[in-house]
């Protein structure tokens, strides 16, 4: 056992001091450790000044304070069994929490290492059934990690095609390929059954492969197989028929008899060829059985896991091929990003049942997770020999439980993101470049937000390195964190900022902008009121669009705002594209407004300052006057200069104090403020705050308005809703504008009415 390694503690066993509820899954070669911990991190809070105190001109609108907050986080670490002793020593030395008395254990090696664990950690090892843990873990990742499952396509532009998270994950088939194969049908959280299996599995590949090739290690065997030609060893249909067996539709290249040539020829076969033939034989056999079971039980979702699969491109490819062949494409082989962690997650969940982890929503912390590592060995030879590396997965417990927006037309087919960057190389290159370019500015902004703290410079530098490293990883492995989208790039940046205690770099800017915009509010409202109905509607929409120009997330705008703070609302209006807009459904919208008022409008708001105060409020004010109830949905946590729910509470109060329309609406509960459950500049309508969903349902919402590039262009551009919707944004990025066929500051005004049939 290698005890010589020293562990970089900050990097690997993070938050160990508060750790509790340990679980361990020891497999044939890898150990997976899980624990629950609490993380203390800084959050920005806003608080309204006492009304009595706030009357002097020049005082800020509200108070910003940074507070410590404690949140729950799950840590999962994967390392080679060789380091188990070193790791146990490390944990013992750093463990402060003494409540912990037991460690849940699963996996074949749990028995072997039982004594060592008990001796080192002084914890009682409590064994849990392997299959139960596996299924529990599988359910957890499928529910909580968007894009957990993927389809593998070796020769496609993107090897990994991530699947939507289905709101209902059951029923599914899990094919676990360990030394043998287990086929498990999972029907509900606690309802699963082993419906079959096979003795021809990973152990057969390994054992038979070792005998045939004198190669001892599993990884080496796979390596051999990836270089071999199975056609030298296998008897193909064409070896028997001379060509295809046409009447049955069997092509000539099909394997008629595995190892059939070694039965009839006396020559020597190469190790590579035999390993490849063996790999095909076993993968095909497993694929065939999987299909027969899927057919018998009428299941189409089939996930593969176990050490035979575990991120190995070679086996994922052969299994995918086999499933495709035997089901004629009707069933797709699905793999899981965190497949290696399932047992540990399940064992952990077993031990944490009293914490009720299943009643919360969880989100992957991109800053602390390693992402999917394995790629084709040809692409990245280093990774196959990554001995000594530690893989990590961190899941944050979300404050709020997340659910679907009830107004999604088809939740199962909803994809939030407009462009999948793993599949669009051009866009990927651009956006990765764009985020890298913007990094300096973000670092500067972060430092500026904490001028009073000298060590902020150092933290900001750490942030820069972390995020740049993530960008570099993504450049080489675009699928490392599931889907790669503008949203995931933005979210990863937010996670990294949080990681280094920059909870809200824009807090002061937002405060300043809000303060400034409030001064103009009444003037804007008044000037609108003087217009004719038709003119008023157009001015309100233009105001909404002009407000949306004020977005610190967009590089073009942040450049202007940095250099010319006087850039005003009126100027913004002039920057806007003249009608007809890039996407222009304004006439249909006006026609609709001439009809009866909507019952309730749900408005997903975007930026602070001019956008929310001078754009959104006058617009919804008109809706309220028309008799439409309004629900303003804003972010739960900070992201860029987006207005957060707590900021919006204060702003609304201030506006209500000036404007009787808003005041009355608030009092009569015709204007409601809710949080959306997210801290992202984008919007995933399948993961929204449960309270929001309830409000939407109770109020009979019949209009959804989504504003801004992040929420209406990068995400939800193609989202289909079951009620009327308005998606509007100003394209503040030349590249994107060009891609959509327009210029910078082009306007998208998309008004959609679902077809009657879907009513």
């Amino acid at each position, binding site marked *: 056992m290698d005890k010589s390694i020293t562990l970089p503690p900050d990097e690997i066993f993070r938050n160990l001091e508060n750790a509790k509820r340990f679980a361990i899954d020891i497999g044939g070669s890898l150990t997976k450790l899980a624990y629950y911990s609490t993380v203390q991190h800084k959050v920005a809070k806003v608080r309204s000044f006492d009304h009595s105190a706030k009357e002097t001109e020049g005082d800020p609108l509200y108070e910003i304070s940074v507070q410590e907050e404690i949140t729950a986080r799950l840590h999962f670490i994967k390392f080679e069994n060789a380091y188990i002793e070193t790791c146990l020593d490390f944990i013992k030395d750093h463990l402060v929490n003494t409540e912990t008395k037991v460690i849940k254990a699963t996996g074949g090696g749990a028995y072997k290492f039982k004594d060592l664990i008990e001796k080192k950690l002084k914890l009682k090892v409590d064994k849990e059934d392997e299959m139960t843990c596996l299924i529990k873990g599988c359910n957890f990742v499928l529910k909580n990690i968007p894009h957990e499952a993927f389809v593998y396509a070796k020769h496609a532009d993107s090897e990994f095609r991530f699947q939507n998270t289905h709101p209902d994950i059951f029923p599914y088939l899990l094919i676990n390929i360990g030394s*043998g194969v287990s086929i498990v049908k999972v029907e509900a959280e606690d309802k699963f059954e082993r419906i079959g299996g096979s*003795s021809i599995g990973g*152990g057969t590949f*390994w054992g038979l492969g070792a005998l045939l090739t004198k190669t001892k290690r599993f990884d080496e065997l796979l390596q051999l197989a990836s270089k071999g030609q199975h056609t030298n060893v296998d008897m193909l249909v064409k070896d028997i028929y001379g*060509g295809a067996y046409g*009447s049955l539709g069997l092509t000539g290249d099909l394997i008629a*008899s595995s190892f*059939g040539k070694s*039965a009839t020829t006396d020559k020597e*076969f190469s190790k590579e060829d035999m390993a490849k033939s063996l790999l095909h034989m076993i993968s095909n056999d497993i694929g065939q059985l999987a299909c027969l079971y899927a057919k018998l039980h009428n299941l189409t979702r089939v996930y593969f896991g176990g050490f035979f699969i575990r991120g190995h491109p070679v086996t994922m490819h052969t299994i995918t091929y086999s499933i495709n062949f035997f089901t004629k494409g009707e069933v797709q082989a699905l793999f899981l990003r965190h497949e290696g962690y399932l047992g540990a997650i399940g064992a952990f969940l077993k031990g944490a049942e009293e914490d009720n982890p299943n009643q919360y929503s969880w989100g992957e912390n991109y800053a602390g997770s390693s992402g999917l590592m394995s790629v084709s060995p040809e692409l990245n030879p280093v990774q196959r020999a990554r001995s000594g590396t530690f893989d990590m997965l961190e899941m944050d417990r979300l404050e709020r439980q997340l659910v679907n927006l009830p107004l999604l037309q088809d939740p199962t087919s909803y994809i939030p993101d407009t462009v999948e960057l793993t599949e669009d190389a051009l866009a990927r290159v651009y956006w990765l470049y764009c985020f890298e370019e913007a990094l300096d500015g973000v670092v500067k902004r972060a430092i500026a937000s904490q001028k009073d703290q000298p060590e902020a410079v150092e933290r900001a530098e750490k942030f820069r390195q972390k995020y740049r490293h993530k960008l570099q990883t993504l450049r080489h492995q675009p699928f490392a964190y599931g889907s790669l989208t503008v949203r995931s790039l933005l979210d990863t940046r937010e996670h990294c900022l949080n990681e280094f205690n920059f909870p809200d770099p824009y807090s002061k800017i937002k405060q300043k902008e809000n303060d400034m915009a409030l001064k103009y509010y009444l003037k804007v409202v008044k000037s609108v009121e003087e217009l004719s109905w038709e003119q008023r509607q157009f001015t309100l929409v233009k105001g909404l669009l002009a407000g949306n120009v004020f977005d610190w997330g967009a590089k073009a705008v942040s450049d202007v705002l940095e250099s010319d703070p006087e850039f005003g609302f009126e100027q913004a209006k002039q920057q806007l594209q003249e009608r007809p807009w890039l996407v222009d459904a304004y006439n249909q919208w006006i026609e609709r407004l001439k009809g009866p008022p909507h019952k309730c409008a749900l408005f997903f708001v975007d930026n602070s300052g001019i956008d929310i105060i001078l754009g959104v409020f006058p617009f919804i004010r008109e809706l309220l006057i028309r008799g439409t109830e309004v629900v303003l949905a804003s972010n739960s946590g900070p992201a860029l200069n987006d207005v957060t729910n707590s900021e919006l509470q204060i702003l609304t109060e201030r506006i209500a104090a000036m404007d009787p329309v808003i005041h009355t609406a608030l009092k009569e509960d015709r204007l409601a403020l809710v949080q959306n459950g997210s801290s992202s500049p984008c919007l995933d309508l399948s993961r929204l705050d449960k309270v929001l969903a309830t409000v939407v349902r109770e109020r009979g919402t019949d209009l959804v308005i989504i504003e801004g590039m992040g929420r209406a262009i990068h995400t939800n551009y193609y989202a289909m809703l079951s009620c009327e919707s308005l998606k509007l944004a100003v394209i503040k990025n030349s590249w994107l504008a060009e891609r959509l066929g327009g210029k910078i500051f082009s306007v998208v005004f998309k008004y959609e009415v679902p077809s009657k049939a879907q009513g």
Partner: protein
Amino acid sequence: MELNGFHCDGEGCAEEQEEEPKALRLPRSKTDASCSIIATPGADSAAAGGSALREQRMSKSTPAMLRLDSLKKNRPPFPWFGMDIGGTLVKLVYFEPKDITAEEEQEEVESLKSIRRYLTSHTAYGKTGIRDVHLELSDLTLWGRKGNLHFIRFPTHELPAFLQMGRDKHFSSLHTTLCATGGGAFKYEDDFRTMANLQLLKLDELDCLIKGVLYIYSVVSSGPPECYYFEHPTDPERCEQKAYNLENPYPLLLVNIGSGVSILAVYSKDNYKRVTGTSLGGGTFLGLCCLLTGCSTFEEALAMATEGESTHVDKLVRDIYGGDYERFGLPGWAVASSFGNMICKEKRDSVSKEDLARATLVTITNNIGSITRMCALNENIERVVFVGNFLRVNTLSMKLLAYALDYWSKGQLKALFLRHEGYFGAVGALLELPNPS
């Protein structure tokens, strides 16, 4: 006679007037005819012309004569062969007429006589050709002729030698149709033509297989039963072979284990579908045994397997769980991972070749059993007939299949076996002899 829906044409019909045995059918192509004359100078070169004349005469016949002629016409000229050229073995069935009259014998061409004598007086041909004497069906009536059906096999890689022999014995001068099935009928068609001047009538192997099964079952009436099963398959003490009545066989799952495996669902004599197949078949067993043990024949591999112990090689459920894995109803003796013990160097060093051969046999056989069982469930068929040369002298596998099907289906599925296990394709091909096209 109709049995199992198989109508045995012409069988049992009173034979009035035997045609001249040398009367040959029209050559199937001009090339064929001309070549045969050139290639076989010693043969009766008038035969082709004579046959043509006869055709002419027949076309002017009276209705009564036509009926008679039609029977005669349907009856193909000798020799009667059916051939199945598989990936590993060529299976040949030969009908030896035993009712040849003295007159016939006199007129019989030398090459025909020579072929008959060669095949019937030997039980082995060359180093690798074998006649399975125990399978021979005597006193069979086929298309009005009485005779014996012989079953011969040789490795597919010896096909060139066979063609050479055909050439030496002037087979092509007989202008007979050679009905052949199996992949080799397609792959070697050119070789048959160029090397032996023979034209093949190529037939689909699954059609032939089913025809052959139904025919053989219908004509075997005495001697050992054609179809049998193992009674008490799960109890080695009481397990014994028992005859099975297959008179109403449908629906039937037919599993043909040759080099690879095909699984057919048969609903009637001409309604069937190939459900699936697997490349883990007899070829895999032999191929892996050759690589693992250095043996070179199926017989050697089987002999070793008989002596070996697979549990040294395989990892059993009890090796992992110490006993049964009760939560999932897995008995301790079940194999959890085939060859699973071989990931460990010490165990690799301690196993014998016999153990490896046995493990290979068990792995392949159980896998076929498992896929078969799933197909039977998916197709809702309870009767499974296993055929193919993998089962030849392979009681080990048959008992394993019987056991596995019975155990995992809780007695729902029955594994049936046929004595002429590997020859049905060839028989089916022979039966197509009167139907040129």
